[in-house]
């Protein structure tokens, strides 16, 4: 199971604080908690909607039943904006502020993982569809990765000529190359 920090049992933690120093301290802790939980459960999206409904993937973190407290939607929206400002999340879809894609692993790190997987499964130089990557027959570190994140990782690789996006019959495909030594 996931171990929640002790501050999660403090009622005030679920209220946005008026004192700037306390507010920063609390939001830093919320961000750390959210990313750790997302990494633990492999959750990629966090939405204001998750604070408006019950029985979703984020209940364990956004609510504490035992002390009858929860993060209210305006506070969550504020925390999302801070995460985007810190580059640990991006608004997805773009041009709205109620949902983010989480970077509990940075695109650069995903790029490395992606290339390692392609290499170790002997798939360099072969054309693959995005689907082959997100839903491989054998579970991989890339399983279930959202397409926007996959695209970003491939973009990072293409900058160093380790990947190339290719148009395939019904969508997008990619080919990975061995790194050229410098």
């Amino acid at each position, binding site marked *: 199971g996931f171990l929640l920090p*002790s501050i999660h*049992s*403090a*009622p*005030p*933690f*679920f*209220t946005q*604080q*008026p*004192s700037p*120093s*306390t507010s*920063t*301290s*609390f939001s830093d802790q919320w961000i750390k908690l959210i990313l750790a939980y997302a990494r633990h459960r492999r959750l990629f999206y966090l939405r204001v909607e998750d604070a408006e409904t019950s029985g979703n993937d984020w209940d364990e973190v956004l609510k504490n039943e035992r002390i*009858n*407290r*929860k993060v209210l939607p305006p506070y969550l929206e504020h925390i999302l904006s801070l995460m985007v400002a810190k580059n640990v999340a991006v608004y997805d879809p773009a041009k709205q502020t109620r949902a983010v894609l989480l970077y509990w692993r940075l695109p650069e790190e995903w790029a490395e993982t992606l290339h390692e997987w392609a290499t170790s499964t002997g798939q360099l130089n072969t054309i693959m569809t995005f689907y082959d990557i997100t839903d491989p027959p054998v579970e991989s570190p890339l399983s279930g990765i959202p397409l926007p994140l996959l695209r970003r990782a491939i973009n990072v690789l293409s900058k160093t000529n380790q990947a190339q996006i290719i148009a395939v019959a019904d969508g997008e495909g990619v080919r990975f190359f061995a790194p050229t030594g410098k």
Partner: protein
Amino acid sequence: MHRRGVGLAAFDRHEQSKRQFAELSNALSKTQIEHLQAQLTQFRTALAHFASTHRDSIRRDPTFRHAFQQMCSSIGVDPLAGPRKGGWWAEMLGLGDWQYELGVQIVDVCVSTRDRNGGMIEMSELVRLVSKLRGVSGGVIDEDDVMRSIKTLQPLGAGYQVVEIGGRKLVRSVVKELDDDQTVVLSIANELGGRVVEGDLIRSKGWTRGRASAALENMLIRDGLCWIDEQDERDGRAYWIPSAMQWNE
């Protein structure tokens, strides 16, 4: 902190020794003086041997450490004096370094928790966090060790002070003093497990609502000494003082 010339360290200094022996020689015979010198040398050797044999125990075990420190003060030696002051004594034990290291760790914990507790941390919480920082290899430290270390921090002018409120020891690490009203709020908070509302101050202290509200709001917004809970079932808004809360970890 800069205690001078008691015990063995004094006898070491050449001028003082000369003068004192000159005085003594008026009263004692030469053989008696030689006998005294031999005794002191023997005592010093035994002490040095004791110090190096038990250095590890002194560093690791608080009970042994306290007994040792009591023995030292009864013979007029200050083992806490730093390398430059205590000379060979402090070097024998390396206690000066140990004390300094503990002081740095205390400051570290106080500074890193200041944002969330406004510079007031409960003693047991401080001991717990410093112990965590030291890990298993650091040996056990207790409240007495922390209190003694804080005393040595005072000349640094950093405002570190132990205050006792409502029967609990708190360590204050900011220069700003608590005003009287805030001290009262803190002691009420201690009794109530951390949660305070205006009504508590009105009922138990006879304050007006204005006075209660001002004290709590100042602590919240101006001083960052407490937190606000806006989902409180009983009163809507409730103030929480972190140093008075029970933390389970």
